[in-house]
């Protein structure tokens, strides 16, 4: 796999750093090169949280990047904060529950894609697996780790919780699956933006 750069951005508590770490570790466990760095600033909580992740077959260079292959922005603020990471080759993903004004989207992108992750997690699954839907979507779009490796990584990270509540495993796997399907569908249907 050649280099894939992903920026995940959301509000504190949405769990973007957690899934960035899980995906990076999954890739690492699969003998890929992976590099993950969170943005960190003055505020411990309260700012937009961004995870920068890179995957590759060969050694990864600079830890941060200016243009991502995929940007996922999970709040209105996150869209504003990350639109500069979008370039001509970027899939820019946001949650379709937000009404983002056209002028607030990035000026340049390969595709701007809205996915109903928040609504799906609230109505169909459970709010706590929102970030796992996002993880599924990222995997569906980027194939940085295989679906099976992602499940293994989830098991590795959350296994102790699954033991207490086996239904949780099923919930997480379904979230992963639904996120992946959402992404694949959106990739087929998504309208190329020419803003």
């Amino acid at each position: 796999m050649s280099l894939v750069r992903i920026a995940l951005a959301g509000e504190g508590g949405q769990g973007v750093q957690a899934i960035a770490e899980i995906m990076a570790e999954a890739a690492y466990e699969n003998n890929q090169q992976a590099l993950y760095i969170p943005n960190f600033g003055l505020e411990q909580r309260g700012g937009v949280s961004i995870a920068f992740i890179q995957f590759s077959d060969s050694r990864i260079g600079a830890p941060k990047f200016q243009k991502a292959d995929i940007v996922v922005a999970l709040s209105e603020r996150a869209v504003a904060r990350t639109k500069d990471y979008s370039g001509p080759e970027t899939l820019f993903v946001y949650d379709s529950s937000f009404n983002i004004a056209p002028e607030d989207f990035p000026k340049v992108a390969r595709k701007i894609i809205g996915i109903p992750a928040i609504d799906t997690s609230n109505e169909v699954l459970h709010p706590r697996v929102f970030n796992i839907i996002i993880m599924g979507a990222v995997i569906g779009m980027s194939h940085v780790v295989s679906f099976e490796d992602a499940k293994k990584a989830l098991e590795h990270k959350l296994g102790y919780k699954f033991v207490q509540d086996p239904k949780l495993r099923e919930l997480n796997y379904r979230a992963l699956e639904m996120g992946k399907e959402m992404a694949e569908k959106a990739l087929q249907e998504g309208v190329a933006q020419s803003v």
Partner: protein
Amino acid sequence: MPKVIGEAKKSFMTGNETAAWACLAAGADMMFGYPITPQNEIMHYWTRLAPRYGRGFLQTEDELSAGFTVCGAVQSGKKAFTATAGPGNVLMQEPFGMAEAMRLPLLAIIQQRGGPSSGTVVYSQQEVTLTTFGGNGEGMRIVYSTATHQEIYDYIIKGFNTAWQYRFPVFILGDGYQAKMREPLEIYDPEDRGIEMLKPYPLIGLEGEIGQSREPQHLCNIYSLEEELYEVVMKMAAEYESLQDSLVEYDEKNCDDADIIILSHGVVSRAAEDAMKILRTQGIKAGYFRPITLRPYPQQQLRNAIAKSGAKIILCAESAYGQLDRLTKQEIYGETIKMENLFMPGVGIIDYDIVDKVKSVI
């Protein structure tokens, strides 16, 4: 002392965690520290791990105290270290000066953050001048600028040995990106790699009865006469200079036929190497030179690279406004090669920043 790492193992961790493991594996006895971002997790991991291996920790009232407690611990014969950044590095120049003057083999991990002043808590390469030549002295220090987690691990282990072998303070110069990012590395027990860790020894608090089996030790760092100090500094300088050849480390790629040499250090050298490769595929003869030790600087090696390549330009790329550039110019004084620069103080540099700059100057 229980072995810290049994079998060598692949790990995926942050640079700060790597640093804590490396200090453990190197046999460090004590850490003294004061919170400052982005080095905090070195203390966090150390305070969790150290008690399991009988190692000590003290959170001091400030960086002055952290530096001076390290000086005391080293004098008493313990392998001691600290970690800091930015304004903390400024304060620690005072104890680092004492270490330089009294030849105390301390090790300090510097995770550079933005400056001047409080700057940012994130990242920069703006502590090069401070770390190499800080204090009211002559820069008699050994500074390793790391680029990967593997190097953080390797050079901390090496750094403790360098410090105790030569008794100059040793600095591991990282940065906020290296501190916070996760990437793979292999951690190992030094002895399994044939690295013998030097045992520390006390400078005061010696065995034996004073006046009977030994003389009292009087360690001094202030002199009545100019001539006394002159002797001390000149002796130290001569010793430091005699060690240059055995201390300098560098990395050089594709300089044999280079028209332009991309010069960088630390984490930026990752982008510099990628840029060099991209430029080569585009038919531009770019070379790559990276000092790993910033003190002492591999100046002869850089001069050789310039000479053999016949390059007409050096492009110095750094996340600072000319600190590596200035250091390099003073080290290779007399060379007539043109120096171009890509100064991006406090922000990261990617391969295409360098590629574009090279194309604009060549």
